[in-house]
């Protein structure tokens, strides 16, 4: 039994209003699995009765939105950007003679995004030189990323089994990523409001599901830093529900497969 349409519509509405994230139909399971712990804590019978009870209580809405938007890192998250990279973006950058490819995974959390990119490069472009810089503000996530060790639950999230077998080794309760992949990614502490990390200008910048937490002025500030760090013709990758439109007009949206990417307007290669 999943949540009722009424529950789903209400939750989707407040999530959209407060985070700009669209919960598409089909994600009922997500609403249920993320809100079940809150419902239990509140002593509610199930998620539906929990949501019914908190509808009028605006003070509780933020908690619900956070439970649904918390940045849970997974491998190849949202998939489309990685398909776009593999099929279009990386081949195009190679054609343009970019070497080594410089890639920045901003707000990288525990490193799954950066290592997913490293897996694509290793499997599909083994002769291409690349530098991947992964940055975050929090020391503990950087330490975990550097260690390259992940629990079984973390491994389950989005990592295709054939890639698990090829690139990881089981060490007791954890899976450890290969030293080859680890050597491709450099983890650094970085605040998005500071100058971009050394190692640029970057051909590809991943900045996903982080600007949603900032106000418009801060978003503009971060985007202007990113613009200064991106190489001519380089690509900016946003979260699936994010856009620069209405925030910073200096970016142009480019449709690549099922994915919208962004290029800096005045510096876009012709």
């Amino acid at each position, binding site marked *: *039994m*999943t949540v009722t349409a009424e529950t789903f519509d209400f939750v989707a509405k407040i*999530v959209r209003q407060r985070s700009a*994230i*669209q*919960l*598409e139909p*089909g*994600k*009922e*399971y*997500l609403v*249920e*699995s993320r809100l079940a712990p809150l419902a239990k804590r509140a002593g509610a019978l199930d998620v539906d009765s929990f949501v019914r009870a908190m509808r009028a209580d605006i003070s509780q809405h933020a908690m619900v939105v956070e439970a*649904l*938007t918390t940045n*849970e890192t*997974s*491998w*190849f*998250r*949202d*998939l*489309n950007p990685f398909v776009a990279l593999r099929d279009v973006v990386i081949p195009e950058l190679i054609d343009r003679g970019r070497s080594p490819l410089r890639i920045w995974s901003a707000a990288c959390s525990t490193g799954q995004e950066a290592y997913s990119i490293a897996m694509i490069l290793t499997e599909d472009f083994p002769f291409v030189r690349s530098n991947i810089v992964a940055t975050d503000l929090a020391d503990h996530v950087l330490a975990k990323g550097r260690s390259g060790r992940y629990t*079984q*639950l973390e*491994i*389950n*999230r*989005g990592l*295709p*089994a*054939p890639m*698990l*077998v090829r690139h*990881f*080794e*089981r060490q007791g309760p954890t899976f450890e990523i290969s030293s080859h992949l680890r050597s491709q990614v450099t983890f650094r502490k970085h605040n998005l409001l500071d100058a971009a990390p050394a190692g640029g200008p970057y051909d590809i910048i991943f900045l*996903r*599901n982080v600007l949603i937490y900032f106000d418009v002025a801060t978003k503009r500030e971060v985007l202007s830093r990113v613009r200064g760090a991106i190489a001519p013709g380089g690509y900016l990758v946003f*979260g*699936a*529900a994010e856009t620069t439109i209405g925030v910073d007009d200096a970016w142009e949206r480019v449709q690549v497969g*099922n994915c919208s990417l962004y290029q800096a307007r005045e510096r876009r290669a012709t």
Partner: protein
Amino acid sequence: MKALVVDDSRVIRKIVSRILAPMGFEAIEAENGEAALEQLEAHGDMALCCIDWNMPVMSGLDLVVAIRKNAEWRDITLMMITAEGEQDQIVRALAAGAHEYVIKPFTPEVIFDKLQFLGLVKAKETA
């Protein structure tokens, strides 16, 4: 789309079926490999099989091998869902013809991510 959920635990079968339903799957259940083969004979249009490893009568690995021997079933996506998490077991399952491997315990997102990668559910907006 039809999905066959093979597990000797009725509870696990229900959980997996319930996870698959909102992703557009009509789940059919079987309690071991042999019962699964009967269901596959009865339903010609199965898109996905979720298969436990340790079951009485016929194991999940034997079921994968049996399915892969039948050319009519070559388009069925096979996903192991099992508590067996040793690397050599994952390798054996993939070598036998499984496409994916989920280690229990798992969350609905785990199943969604895997099916998305396999192209059985569409990649949608993030959340």
